[in-house]
């Protein structure tokens, strides 16, 4: 295949919090008891050695529950977070060795659409400024052309250009989502990261916005990383799905394959959990237990305390050894000891 548009190699993101006095004291007490050395920081492994490859024109769905690091990964992809470890390649070029000009061009090419259409728009800016500011700053259009360009962008996402003098609070949730999309499109990106872009919208409005994403993909030949917890949305849009659990990718496969025959026990549980219209009066069977805290993740396979198959693996491997993401079929990867 050709060079991927984006490639992440063993990328990690740790958030560190310096402990306050009480925290340090408690920690040193614990270390005298356990004999381990005391630490003065608390570390969250939000993203733990993740590999991700996205080809041009592809729609990749990224699925996981809250706290699994999917939003952090999305931010790493567009460069809003700096990775703690690992490398990021854009069109085959390592981003850490890029010149400032190249890095800037890359930043323009990859844009992000945020979850909350209320919080991500400046309430004191008019829509024309929200959409028009970035393209003028980056020299996509001159300031003389700005008004026309904004009108064009608004039409593209299905907003009436005559509303361009209004403020965000004068729009409904669905319209605000469209403003967010127009803002991202205004700098003519090739790649969009949509972080729960439709989660806050009503069902009928959600369908409208999803249709807009499909239309824009066809018109502009866009590549998407679609982050969502909603499996039905991801299934509808994506070519390939990546499932995350507690900072690690547990399975990735083409959409149809994944939904028809999930491999990883977590994916299987997740798919069984999703309420659908087709099943009437179903008996809800639950994955046991809670999502563990990423501050103190379980050893070995992160999923083992909740996994129904963990006991079947000989020698307690699930508890002691982290399963690596391995190819189990063409384009299919899964991280589970059961596959061996």
């Amino acid at each position: 295949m050709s060079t991927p548009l984006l490639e992440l190699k063993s990328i990690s993101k740790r958030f560190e919090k310096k402990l306050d006095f009480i925290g340090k004291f408690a920690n040193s007490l614990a270390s005298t008891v356990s004999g381990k050395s005391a630490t003065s920081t608390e570390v969250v492994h939000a993203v733990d050695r993740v590999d991700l490859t996205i080809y041009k024109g592809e729609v990749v769905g990224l699925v996981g529950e809250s706290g699994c690091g999917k939003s952090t990964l999305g931010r790493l992809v567009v460069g809003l977070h700096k990775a703690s470890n690992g490398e990021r390649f854009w069109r085959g070029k390592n981003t850490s060795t890029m010149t400032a000009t190249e890095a800037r061009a890359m930043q323009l090419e990859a844009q992000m659409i945020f979850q909350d259409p209320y919080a991500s728009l400046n309430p004191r800016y008019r829509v024309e400024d929200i959409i028009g500011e970035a393209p003028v700053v980056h020299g996509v259009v001159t300031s003389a052309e700005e008004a026309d360009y904004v009108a064009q962008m608004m039409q593209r996402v299905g907003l009436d250009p005559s509303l361009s003098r209004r403020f965000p609070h004068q729009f409904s949730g669905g319209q605000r989502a469209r403003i967010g999309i127009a803002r991202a499109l205004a700098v003519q990106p090739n790649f969009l990261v949509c972080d729960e872009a439709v989660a806050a919208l009503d069902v009928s409005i959600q369908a409208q916005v999803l249709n807009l994403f499909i239309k824009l993909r066809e018109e502009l030949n866009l590549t998407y990383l679609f982050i969502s917890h909603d499996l039905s949305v991801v299934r509808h849009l994506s070519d390939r799905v990546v499932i995350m659990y507690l900072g690690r990718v547990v399975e990735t496969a083409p959409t149809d394959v994944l939904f028809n025959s999930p491999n990883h026990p977590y994916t299987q549980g997740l798919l069984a959990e999703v309420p659908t219209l087709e099943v009437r009066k179903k008996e809800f069977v639950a994955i046991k237990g809670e999502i563990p805290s990423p501050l103190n993740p379980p050893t070995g396979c992160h999923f083992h305390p909740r996994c129904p198959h963990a006991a079947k693996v000989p020698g307690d491997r699930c508890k002691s050894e982290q399963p690596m993401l391995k190819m189990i079929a063409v384009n299919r990867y899964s991280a589970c000891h059961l596959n061996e």
Partner: protein
Amino acid sequence: MSATPVLSVENLRTHFFTKAGIVKAVDDVSFTINKGEILGLVGESGSGKSMTGYSIMGLIDTPGRVVSGKIMLNGTEVSNYNNAQWRSLRGNRIAMIFQDPMMTLNPVLRVDTQMMEAITAHEKVSKTEARQRCRNALVQVGIPSPDERLLAYPHQFSGGMRQRVAIAIALLNKPDLIVCDEPTTALDVTIQGQILFEMQTLCRESGTALLWITHDLSVVAGLADRVAVMYAGKIVEQGTTAQLLGSPLHPYTKGLLDSVPSRNVKGKPLQQIPGMTPSLLQIGAGCAFRERCARRAAACEAAPAFSTPISGSAQQVRCYYPHTNSTTKGAA
């Protein structure tokens, strides 16, 4: 159906008298729930589904008021109750579970204090007995090591656990009816699955009736016995879950179902309902959905009443031109 329903709501109207005008949040809503039954009340934001729940709990604040209509609990009318009477009812015979469990639980009180309060407010029981009942309720909703958990504060629980505590509090006095206002919306899929499973079993075992308010049709599909769909303050369609999801009559219900991604061909544009939900201030006479409806005609300028277009079926719809012939399979 001869027994008195646990809850019967007749022609309920809850209006808000604002400076901008009268907002008819709930406008002529009627339904009944029988013992052990789960009614799903579905609607988009602003459709009045939560306000219907609040009206049933007697929780409407100024500038809002229940203007007319009857709320009957086990055959007794409660809509004209005064505050003291409502207080003896709430948490005792009827209970409510809200969307955000962090808002429902008092952050500075231990869980046992809050739970025992709910019992001692309605009954004269000893502390030991109250504590024992709280412990049992926590076990019932599947909280591990309940004795230690009773001594914890709400912030020490995860979102799903907090919601379980809220459910446990609702269950304490074995109410006849629990109003659930989007209780699983804020939760993750696997946790939602657990809560739905527990509510279903509890309901079946104790005969408690549930009013399940949600925007998510797929949650209702697996859970509810009957479904009512609300749009702009009115119930536009109600029937059994199978009827309503299998052969929706109202164009709005049909539109909602058609726009669900799993019902569409993958990668192709979704069927969508054009336009937006109308502002409740600006609804004139006539069918509120007519602006977005493909079937609208001159008759829609007058508000439609309920009809039962399918003979031998109790499925009710407020529409002059229901989708009666779309019931054949594969018509879509």
